[in-house]
């Protein structure tokens, strides 16, 4: 642990790195604020929360969803509609309940719609098994596993989480920090010329390399926590992030998401997956920085790789995107709908497949770094030829 701390301090507790993080934090805050003005989802949310008396009405409805509360909401709504028709009510009051009712109804009826899908999936399994179509039967079994037992018990308006979860700019910034960190990891030793000395000590190369990579991962974990924490904090200030314990599918945009956990667990998952992708990208940056000598070529290779990833991530999910860290940083692309990948006659969740592919890529990059760093050939790596 102490060795990792020393490596961390050596590489990342540097003025330039701290300054870079601060700059990117400011850029991120600016971007969230700009999104708050331009994003159509945000506009929709704003319209909802500007309805007269909406906050009070939302507060009143919070709690367990029962047939009685649903009936009460319907009664109030029809009473207001009746009043409007008779000329004694106001449109504004009606619009408040018009804004509330569909979402409440969505949550109330979610399990009914979901059970229907599960039933359909069960019928599909029977059908496909009868016709020997093992793959499609497997797809439906996967569906059943992922969507079984879904039920929204409590009401809370968690719709604004859709704004937070669809915000991916900080992932791009994390890639930039990953690039900067990897450059620091390689060039720091190149610049100081101490690597020769470190290699002559009793601590083996493996342990030293592990400490360096571990320090890099700690750096990325901290950077990801800062950026993601900022995303959460700024969105909390600008929007209504409520109902952290609600299931993710309580957010209408995630009605069909294959992630069955709570919003809180998805938030943690999102942080983890972004960190994982940043580590994978970072290790690839390290390989590139190690392979090429000088500064210009590795920087170009890094930037080329980074923008390649970002451009690929704009495409729809495919085999290529499984190997794209920028794509996996946006897990809603895999999770927002049911998405399966065929492996032989079996269906595997696209997210699981993408994670496995990314893990494999990470291990390959890690092994490549160890091999490259262990080579005592002057024309590669840290040392200059003397």
């Amino acid at each position, binding site marked *: 642990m102490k060795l990792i701390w*020393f490596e961390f301090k*050596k590489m990342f507790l540097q003025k330039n790195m701290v300054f870079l993080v601060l700059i990117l934090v400011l850029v991120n805050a600016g971007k969230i604020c700009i999104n708050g003005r331009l994003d159509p989802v945000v506009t929709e949310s704003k319209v909802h929360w500007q309805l007269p008396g909406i906050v009070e009405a939302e507060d009143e409805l919070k709690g367990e969803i029962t047939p009685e509360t649903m009936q009460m909401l319907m009664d109030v709504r029809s009473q207001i509609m009746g009043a409007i028709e008779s000329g004694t009510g106001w449109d504004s009051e009606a619009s408040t309940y018009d804004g509330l009712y569909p979402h409440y109804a969505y949550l109330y009826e979610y399990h009914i719609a979901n059970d229907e899908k599960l039933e359909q999936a069960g019928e599909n399994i029977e059908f496909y098994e009868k016709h020997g179509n093992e793959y499609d039967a497997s797809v439906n079994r996967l569906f059943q596993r992922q969507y079984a037992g879904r039920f929204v018990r409590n009401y809370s308006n968690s719709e604004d989480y859709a704004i937070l979860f669809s915000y991916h700019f900080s992932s791009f910034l994390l890639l930039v920090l990953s690039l900067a960190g990897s450059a620091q990891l390689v060039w720091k030793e190149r*610049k*100081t010329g101490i690597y*020769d000395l470190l290699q*002559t000590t009793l601590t083996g190369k493996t342990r030293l390399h592990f400490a360096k990579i571990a320090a890099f991962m700690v750096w990325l974990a901290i950077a990801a926590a800062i950026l993601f924490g900022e995303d959460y904090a700024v969105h909390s200030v600008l929007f209504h992030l409520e109902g952290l314990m609600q299931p993710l599918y309580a957010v209408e945009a995630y009605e069909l998401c294959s992630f069955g956990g709570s919003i809180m667990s998805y938030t943690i998952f999102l942080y983890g997956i972004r960190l994982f992708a940043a580590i994978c990208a970072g290790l690839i940056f390290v390989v590139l920085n190690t392979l090429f000598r000088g500064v210009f070529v590795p920087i170009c290779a890094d930037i080329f790789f980074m923008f390649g990833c970002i451009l690929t991530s704009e495409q729809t999910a495919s085999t290529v995107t499984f190997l794209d860290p920028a794509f996996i940083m946006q897990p809603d692309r895999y999770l927002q709908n049911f998405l399966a990948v065929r492996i032989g006659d079996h269906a595997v969740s696209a997210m699981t497949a993408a994670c496995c592919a990314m893990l494999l890529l990470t291990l390959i990059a890690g092994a490549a770094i160890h091999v490259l760093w262990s080579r005592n050939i002057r024309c590669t790596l840290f040392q200059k030829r003397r």
Partner: protein
Amino acid sequence: MNIKLEGITKNYGSHCVLNAFSAEFSDGVYGLLGPNGAGKSTLINILVGLLKANEGRICFDGKDIKKLNERYLGAIGYLPQYPHFYGNYSILELMQYMSLLKKIPKSEMADRIHEILHFVNLDTIRDRRISQLSGGMRQRLGIAQALLNDPKLLILDEPTAGLDPKERIRFRSLMAQLASGRTILLATHIVSDVAFIANEIILLNDGTKVQQDTPEQLIASIQGKVWEITVPENKLPAYLASFQVSNARHTENGCELRIIAEHLPEAVQVTPNLEDVFLYYFGEAADHETDMV
């Protein structure tokens, strides 16, 4: 302790950097002297295990270092050429970091660091950042980290490069104190670094060992080949072109030259010094490389 190098050869492609280098070291200070590009750093890198020799072997107390591995690494201290220690570490942090890498037991670490920092006179500023240290202090820190494991073989690559005269003297004094009970191999192209402290000097040129002897014997080997002559200023270019001139000093009567030659009529024979030896053996290469300090 005994280190024996037998027929060490290193090639980079078709270019031979070290050619069948053999030498034997026991306790004492050994100066590895040669112009830049002579193969000193390559030899050191092979000695510390950073490079593999194409041919030859190194024995430490009679055993091949390839078989000793950790035992050998634990017995060496190394200061590379131009080390830029991490500026954001304090002196103490660097020593702790190196102690971890050298696997110094935790129970001994604090005492050992204190003892060595005291020895190199850095103990009072142990919390100062490395970026705030002078060149001499950094070099002493480099020596301090090399001493952490109490090495039997201390290898220093160009240790005085960039130091002022006062720090060089301080360095020589440290070396003199460290010499007992261990082998110090000091690679340099600066003659004065080894002139006063080396028990033996190895002259290396183009990857080949030219000579290995005591400074006195090396000086004796060119006895009668060093001359002094005063010439008019206008003849200076001709002398510089025709002879190996180890020193030129302008006086009222003209230019006083120190020349290395087999015979020089009208000149006065003088006692050679180690710089003359360097010039005698390395000739043209030395003209460009020697730092006559």
